[in-house]
Every structure is written in structure tokens, then in C-alpha cells.
């Protein structure tokens, strides 16, 4: 293992955390698998390190290992060394771990909705954290920017919003004044404005409290707006590490380079397809003596599957990289730049969908004795029309009424006021957020795609051929026609869902947050596929998202929805360059970017 010199000049004190050669084996259903493999890194007081990787890369396991909270049912075997504030934790007893968790390391998690005990008041949960008196609880709650801390302290968690809960969790963790804070995707469940606030809060806390923060994320852009250093994790190994800005500018491992290329922000080129990471190939290799990325790597050589690349100092930046051929990585970028631009899309004047004065309310609160409830408006007199061939993105925070509007357009929900006019007699097709849940588990892909043909032609050889063509159109192998959804990856499920939507091309395709739960690379792939299909098949599209960058990439116009009202609708670049409403302005300002210091 290569000894890495730490290049940050600032902290003069010793490291808070020293991880050496950390390996973790977890057994699921009796099958052991190595989720972390030879991890070594140091952290210094006040430093923020981003730990970046796809789902399944082991990034969450690092956080759990550092807290000693790996699930016991997976029979964790931990080897190597973790020294936290000078105390060796690998092989330590229960009491040592407990005391380490109490005084040294705390964590905040991805899911603020589930991370608070639903039957205990905030105050009692915070008292448990530090045995703190009431004043310090109030202090900490207000330091995280929560208004009316006394009221919040006495509330039960279900009274609070996701953003408030995440602040409570941060306050709860920070009031113990830990040396190390592990933040595992703390902003994934939040909208961008809240995300920006939480990131600011973490940055301030790291500085003021000299707490080291290990920030786990799949999103390099978010990482770049916060972290001092970055560790890129792939299949349980560190493939690249270095100063955040160095890696962002000169990614040296082909995987980090791919991740960087695939992320998109408000400055990405929207005239051509987004670069994507190559998807994983089937055959597994013996990773003991190979580069784990070799099966996906565009610059892989024969020796990549024969030698395990050591983590060595990188030539182009001050960090380290684990790639035998990292000098080739630079050429990847040039290859990508010359992707063909999208052909021009013919937009007609006729409206594919016209929504006029749409109004809708939902019942809220508890049911009264007779089953009557109060009603809360979700949409107030919304007017929106989409022309044939046009794509309109509908952007807004959660709860703004985006999905309700889409469901009204689809005819799934009946509005209380207003009219829905569609150009086509055929109902529009809908793509939902979760592609796996959108497929019936007990029917094959082919059967489900073929359902739409039944109106046109019966099950037959002809039908099978049509299904096969649709599957090919979305870039799947036709043998998958007989596969069950459980046998396919998320990306393949997404393509199957699209094949069902376009086997009989609709005039209008409605997409409900189709990329919000996806890794950066899969999101880019999906956006490319949607852009391609709508142009090829001449579909109009309503694309609902909370992600302004994705909206800008895919749409011809962006409509901004706030509290059930359409506050703005315009050309994407116009809306981003000169937002008219204050809400859109804050949305644009909150977008993270690779530039240091985050937002605009």
C-alpha cells in the first residue's frame, strides 16, 4: 500500500481519523462478499471529505463501519485499522464503540423522515444525545436555522417537514460536539433550495466546531460545492483521491472522469446527447487480481484484468489514482466532445394538450366522525398548453402540485374546475418515477409491452414482432422479451417502461420525475433516451421534475409551479439567465455547480 502524503497545508494538529487498509466482508444469505477492500485515508479537524460512488460501491458501508453499526445479521468481518482520535476501533469491545459513538463520531442519514423516533418528542431525543439542558437544546435548534425552537423541541417528528427534521438531526448530532460527522446523502430527499441551506449549514459547522465531515454522496456536483477533498469509490475500493478541485478539473481515473462527464448542471451542453458511463457488462471477473472497473472501462487493456492496480500518486494532480493506464484518461474527454447534435425538432402550432383553469383540492387532516374532511387547494387555476412535438418541463418543489397536474393531464385524476383538451383520441402514455415498480412483477416484459397492442392487433406473430421492434427501439436486447422485471437492472426496467409507452407512439408522453431516484449516469442515459425518442417519434412531452438542470437539458420550455400556481413559463436558457419570479430566482441560485463555493 502506498503511503499518501497529506497535501492540505492548513491543519497543523494530527489527524482525527486514520483509516488503514480497512476491509469489510458482509454475508448476505450465507454468501460472503467483500464490500470494502483496502481502504486507507486520513481526516483532519474541520476538513470535509466527499466520498463519491454509485449505489453498491460501499460508500454507505464505510460510514456504518466507522460507527460500528454494520447490520449484525450480515455477520460483518472487519479487518485493518480505524484510529479515531487516537483510539483503535477495529476489534474494540462494545463499551469502547459505545463511548466512541457518544463522544467522537456522529452521523446524519439520507432519510430524515425515518431517522427520528416517531413516538418521542424532539426534546427527549435530543436530551438523549448529550444529556443537555433545555437551553442548549434550544440553542442548537436555532443554530441550525429552525424558527421557534421551543415549539419544535416539544413536537413529535411527524409534525415537522423533511427539511426541519434534517436540521433537527444535524443539531442532535452536533450538540455532542463530535470529532467526526458522517453525513450519508443528507440532502438526497430534499429539494434544491433546502439542499443548499443544509450544505451551507454543514460548511459552517465544520469551520466553527472544527468537526471533520465525511460527506457521502453519489453526486459529484454536490460534493464539489462542499468538500475539501474527495475519495472516489468503486466496488469497495478507492480508485481516486485528491483535492476536490484537482479531481473535478483533472479526473485521472476513467471512472471519475466518466462520473464527471455524466453529471449535468445549468451549464451543460443541451444541444447534443449527454455523455454517459458505459453500463456494466455481464460476465464477472475475479476482482482479486484485476481492476474492478475493467469490465466497463472504455480504455481497458488486457493487463487490467490480470493485475490489481495499486493506488499510486497521480501525475496530473496531487492526489492518488488506482489505474494502470491513467495517462489515457485525458483522451476520453476529447472523444466525447464530438457527439452529434440533436436534429432540430419540428414543433407545430396545434396544441397536443391544453389545460385551462385547472383547479383541484385534496382532503387534509383527520377524518371527522362522518368521514368528512377539510380540503386544501393543490392547484389553483392553472393554464398550460403543450404544442405537438414540444417538450415542456414542469419544475417545482415537492408539494407544489406538479404530479397532480400530470395526473390530471393523463386523465387519472378528475379536476374540480377547468378543462383538459387533448389533440389525440388515444390517451397519453405515462412514465412514472420508479421504473421497477411500474412493471408488474409476475408478467414478462413482452407481455406487458404487448398490452398496448391489443387494441390494435391481437396476440400473434405480428404482435411479437412489433414488441421486439419496440424493445429494440429503446436499446434493449429482444431476448429480454421473456424476462421478468426482477431479472433486469433498473436501467433495463426504465427502457422496458419506455418501450411500452412508445410501441404505439402516443402524441403525448407524460413523465413523472423519471430520473429523481437515479444515479447521475443512469439519469443522463434516461434523458438521452427520452430526447431521442420524442424526436424520432414526434411526441409532445410533459416532463415533471424538481431538477432545474434536467429540465433545461430536455425541455423546449420550462414552466415553474409554486404552491399550485404557475409562476413562470419560458425558454429554458431565458428562465435561467433572467428568472422573473422570486421563487425561480432562489431555485437558480440554489443549484450546485462544479465551481468552488457552490451556487451562482
Amino acid at each position, binding site marked *: 500500500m502506498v503511503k499518501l502524503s497529506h497535501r492540505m497545508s492548513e491543519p497543523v494538529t494530527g489527524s482525527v481519523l486514520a483509516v488503514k487498509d480497512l476491509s469489510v466482508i458482509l454475508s448476505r444469505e450465507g454468501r460472503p462478499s467483500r464490500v470494502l477492500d483496502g481502504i486507507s485515508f486520513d481526516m483532519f479537524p474541520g476538513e470535509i471529505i466527499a466520498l463519491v460512488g454509485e449505489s453498491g460501491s460501499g460508500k454507505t458501508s464505510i460510514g456504518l463501519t466507522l460507527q460500528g453499526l454494520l447490520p449484525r445479521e450480515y455477520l460483518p468481518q472487519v479487518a485493518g485499522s480505524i484510529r479515531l482520535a487516537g483510539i483503535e476501533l477495529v476489534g474494540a469491545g462494545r463499551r469502547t464503540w459505545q463511548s466512541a459513538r457518544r463522544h467522537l463520531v456522529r452521523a446524519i442519514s439520507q432519510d430524515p423522515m425515518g431517522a427520528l423516533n416517531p413516538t418521542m418528542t424532539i426534546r427527549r431525543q435530543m436530551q438523549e444525545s448529550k444529556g443537555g439542558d433545555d437551553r442548549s437544546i434550544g440553542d442548537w435548534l436555532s443554530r441550525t436555522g429552525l424558527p421557534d425552537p421551543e415549539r419544535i423541541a416539544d413536537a413529535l417528528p411527524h409534525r415537522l417537514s423533511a427539511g426541519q427534521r434534517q436540521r433537527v438531526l444535524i443539531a442532535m448530532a452536533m450538540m455532542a460536539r463530535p470529532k467526526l460527522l458522517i453525513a450519508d446523502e443528507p440532502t438526497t430527499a430534499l429539494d434544491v433550495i433546502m439542499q443548499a441551506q443544509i450544505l451551507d449549514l454543514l460548511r459552517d459547522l465544520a469551520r466553527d466546531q472544527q468537526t471533520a465531515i465525511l460527506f457521502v454522496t453519489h453526486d459529484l456536483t454536490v460534493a464539489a460545492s462542499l468538500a475539501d477533498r474527495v475519495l472516489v469509490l468503486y466496488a469497495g475500493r478507492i480508485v481516486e483521491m485528491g483535492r476536490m478541485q484537482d479531481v473535478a478539473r483533472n479526473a485521472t481515473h476513467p471512472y471519475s472522469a466518466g462520473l464527471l462527464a455524466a453529471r449535468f448542471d445549468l451549464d451543460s451542453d443541451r444541444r447534443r446527447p449527454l455523455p454517459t458511463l458505459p453500463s456494466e457488462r455481464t460476465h464477472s471477473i475475479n476482482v482479486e487480481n484485476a481492476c474492478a472497473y475493467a469490465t466497463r472501462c472504455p480504455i481497458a487493456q488486457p493487463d487490467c484484468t490480470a493485475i490489481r492496480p495499486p493506488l499510486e500518486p497521480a501525475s496530473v494532480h496531487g492526489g492518488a489514482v488506482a489505474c494502470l493506464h491513467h495517462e489515457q484518461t485525458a483522451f476520453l474527454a476529447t472523444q466525447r466532445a464530438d457527439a452529434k447534435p440533436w436534429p432540430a425538432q419540428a414543433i407545430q402550432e396545434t396544441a397536443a394538450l391544453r389545460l385551462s383553469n385547472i383547479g383541484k383540492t385534496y382532503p387534509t387532516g383527520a377524518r371527522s366522525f362522518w368521514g368528512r374532511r377539510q380540503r386544501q387547494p393543490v392547484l389553483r387555476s392553472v393554464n398550460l398548453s403543450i404544442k405537438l412535438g414540444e417538450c415542456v418541463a414542469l419544475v417545482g418543489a415537492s408539494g407544489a402540485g406538479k404530479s397532480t397536474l400530470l395526473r390530471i393531464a393523463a386523465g387519472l385524476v378528475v379536476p374540480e374546475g377547468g378543462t383538459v383538451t387533448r389533440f389525440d383520441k388515444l390517451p397519453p402514455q405515462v412514465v412514472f418515477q420508479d421504473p421497477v415498480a411500474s412493471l408488474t412483477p409476475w408478467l414478462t416484459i413482452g407481455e406487458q409491452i404487448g398490452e398496448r397492442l391489443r387494441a390494435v392487433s391481437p396476440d400473434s406473430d405480428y404482435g411479437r414482432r412489433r414488441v421486439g421492434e419496440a424493445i429494440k427501439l429503446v436499446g434493449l436486447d429482444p431476448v429480454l422479451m421473456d424476462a421478468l422485471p426482477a*431479472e433486469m*437492472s433498473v436501467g433495463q426496467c426504465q427502457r422496458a417502461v419506455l418501450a411500452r409507452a412508445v410501441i404505439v407512439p402516443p402524441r403525448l408522453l407524460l413523465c413523472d420525475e423519471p430520473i429523481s*431516484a437515479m444515479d447521475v449516469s443512469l439519469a443522463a442515459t434516461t434523458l438521452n433516451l427520452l430526447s431521442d425518442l420524442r424526436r424520432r417519434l414526434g411526441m409532445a412531452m410533459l416532463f415533471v421534475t424538481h431538477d432545474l438542470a434536467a429540465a433545461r437539458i430536455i425541455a423546449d420550455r420550462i414552466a415553474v409551479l409554486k404552491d399550485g400556481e404557475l409562476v413562470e413559463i419560458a425558454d429554458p436558457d431565458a428562465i435561467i439567465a433572467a428568472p422573473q419570479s422570486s421563487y425561480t430566482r432562489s431555485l437558480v441560485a440554489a443549484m450546485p455547480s462544479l465551481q468552488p463555493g457552490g451556487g451562482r
Partner: protein
Amino acid sequence: MTKRPSPDTLPARPRFNWRDFFRRAGGLESVGIIGVPVVTVVAVLAPWITPFDPQLRVAGAYLPPSAGHWFGTDEIGRDLFSRVILGAQYTWLPALAVIGFSLTVGTMVGLISGLMGDKVDLVIQRIVDLFLVLPASLIALAVVASLGPGLGNTMIAIAIVWWPWYARISRDEIRRLKARPHVEAARIAGVRGPRLLLRYLLPGVVPALLIGASLDVANIVMTLSLMSFLGLGLPAPAPELGAMTSRTLDSLTVHWWLPILPAAIIFLLCLLANLAGDGIRAALRGA
């Protein structure tokens, strides 16, 4: 996020696989899953497979269990093992019948409630709620007491309080499925009516019903034998297991096998049913 395979080529079809099913069910539970159909066959064939005529004196009275008479003989010299096998029929088949009836009625009511939604759902659910809080064994007791004892009356009484459970399960499952994206997606794809019900909804409801029903068999066997113990089942000469125990209660200290062994058979039936229920639950939940 769950880990998913990512094949470009298709693996061998993992269609329903018994070996996998039993592995997920667990070892003891698999014994139950196999035992339940075996018991059912034995119960159906009981009159033809008993080693002796259960109604006739075949040996001396009060013979303890031996190689010739596995469970001994009763007060008038009838073979207890033969009587117990016939008794299993009187307990097991009615239990299955009650389950079958409740399952059919309950599922139909539940499907109507879940599919129609709105007012129909509200009304049906209020009725189901009402039935669900009724104390089952008290109703059974009161009904049988006022109608007079008899196996048929007992079965009716139990079925009346049992069907709402399945109505609740199937209704909740239908409602859950209806809100799932894949059912919504199928409707958007143009699937309607019976096809939607049979292909997209019902297969999703069956596992929950199967789990519920399999775990209920033992409950119903217990309730039936309790009624029989209290003398509310078939009249005296019939070899009902509960009644056999109850009638010979006083000879416990002298001829222990007379009350104990019929009760032990009830125990065995319940054990197999419970194991099967647990196994089916483990196997289907995992899937």
C-alpha cells in the same frame, strides 16, 4: 437501493421452483407444508383405512397402547387409533370447509369493496369493521347454544365470524395494488375489466390470502374442537376428538390414553397447519 442483476443476456428462467420454495420455508416448516395435504388425504380416506371398525368392540376394554392397538382401546373395547383417525376427519374437513367458505365469501366481498371504492367501500368496510370486533367464540357459543348442538351449526357460527378477515385482507391488498404504479401503468396501457383483475390484480392478492388462510386452519381446528369438547358438536357415538377427551376426562388418572391421545392428535393437526402457515409465509414474503 436493492442490488439487482444486470445481465445483457438472459439467465435461466427462475420460474417457480419447489426446491427454492422449501428452502425459503425452512426445514420444519416444510414438514408442515407436506404434512397438510397428507393429513387431508388421510382424513378423506379415513373410513376406508382404519385398521379396525371404529364403531365396534374389537378387543377387551381399557387396553393400554400396544403393538396390536397403537392407541389402546376404550371403555367398550373399541380401537382408539381407528376412532381417532375417523375423528381427525370430523375435525379436519370441517375446518377446511369453513376456511374455503370464508375465503370465497370474504374474497368476493373484499374484491367488490376494493374495486368499487368510494361509497360502496365505505359501507362494506363499516360492516366488516363491525364483524371484526365481534368476539368470535362468544358468537359461536351463543349461536350453537340457541340453535342446538351440531357440527353444521358450529361451522355456520364460525364461518359467520371468520369471512370478514379475508374481506379485509383482499380489500386492503386490492387497494394497495391499485395505487401501485404497475397497475396504474397497465390501465394507462389500456388494460380494462376482467383482464385487469385476473392478470394484474388477483395474482397480487393471492399470496396474502394464502398466508392468512394457512395460518387460520389451526385456529379453526382449535375452535371446532373446543366446541366439541363442550359437547356442542356431533352427538355421543360419533368419535369427535374434542368430545372424546371431554367424555373420558375423569379417567385421566387411570386410563391416561383415553383423554390424552385424541387431544394429542388435535395438537398434531394444529402443529402441521401452523408450521405450514409459517413456512408459506416465509417462502412468499421472501419472494
